[in-house]
């Protein structure tokens, strides 16, 4: 997806240095990622959920009953909003959050130990299953957490908190030599 280079990433200052070789435990920051919050109307929750779930390229993250953060790696923000509105067929309100949130993807063998330093959720794969997602607190920062693979999690954080969360995650990963870089 092409986006205007004039769109500045929240971590542009923090992650400006030359990319490092990723260690076993690595933090990737999604440079451009499109997402929108879908607020289903009363009694339309199930229909909306099904409509979006039917789209293999859209990832749904649970935010609240009848509310999902829908993430796309291919759509542009306005395209995603339009597509979701059509998909939901008047059953939901769609709010673009592509600029309001920052996506962190953390992967590696020690990722559960790293996240346990901030997140009070049992991340055992039997409890927090693949594809699972939840709004949680990471330290002091509210994030949406999703398990996208056995040892891979995505944290979606409000943009204004992104630098703080980044600093926190790097500190949590210090003992495991966690590295970080933009992913694209």
């Amino acid at each position, binding site marked *: 997806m092409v986006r205007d280079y004039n769109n500045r990433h929240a971590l542009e200052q923090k992650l400006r240095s030359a990319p490092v070789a990723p260690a076993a435990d690595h933090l990737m920051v999604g440079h451009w990622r499109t997402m929108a919050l879908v607020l289903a109307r009363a009694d339309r929750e199930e229909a909306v959920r099904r409509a979006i779930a039917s789209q293999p390229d859209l990832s749904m993250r649970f*935010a*609240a*009953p009848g*509310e999902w953060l829908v993430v796309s790696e291919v759509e542009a923000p306005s395209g995603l909003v339009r597509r979701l509105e059509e998909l939901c067929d008047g059953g939901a309100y769609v709010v673009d959050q592509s600029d309001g949130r920052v996506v962190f993807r953390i992967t590696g063998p020690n990722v559960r130990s790293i996240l346990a330093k901030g997140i*009070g*959720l*049992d991340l055992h794969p039997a409890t927090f299953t693949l594809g699972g997602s*939840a*709004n*949680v*607190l990471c330290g002091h920062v*509210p994030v949406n957490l999703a398990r996208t693979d056995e040892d891979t999690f995505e944290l979606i954080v409000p943009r204004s908190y992104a630098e703080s969360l980044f600093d926190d995650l790097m500190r949590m990963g210090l003992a495991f030599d966690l590295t970080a870089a933009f992913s694209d």
Partner: protein
Amino acid sequence: MASLITCPHCGVRPKEEFAIRGDASRGRPEPMDSDEAWHDYVYVRANPRGRTQEHWHHVAGCRRFLVVERDTATHEVYSVVDAAEFALRATR
């Protein structure tokens, strides 16, 4: 106070994710209800030992208000339900 609250939407969560608003047992009076009813609603709070119903806001989770029924002495939590459901049930 409980260390963990089972949110009906999010599952078991640490209490740090919640903010307690207070007594959930009394409904908001109607506009024309008596001065006493309004005064009680806004200002008067019991501080019971034992069972209470409180509004807990799942601030760092689903952002739903929940009604937590718990015991202030033993800290046992009896039930947690969504506040909207609770309010609709009360009006029914």
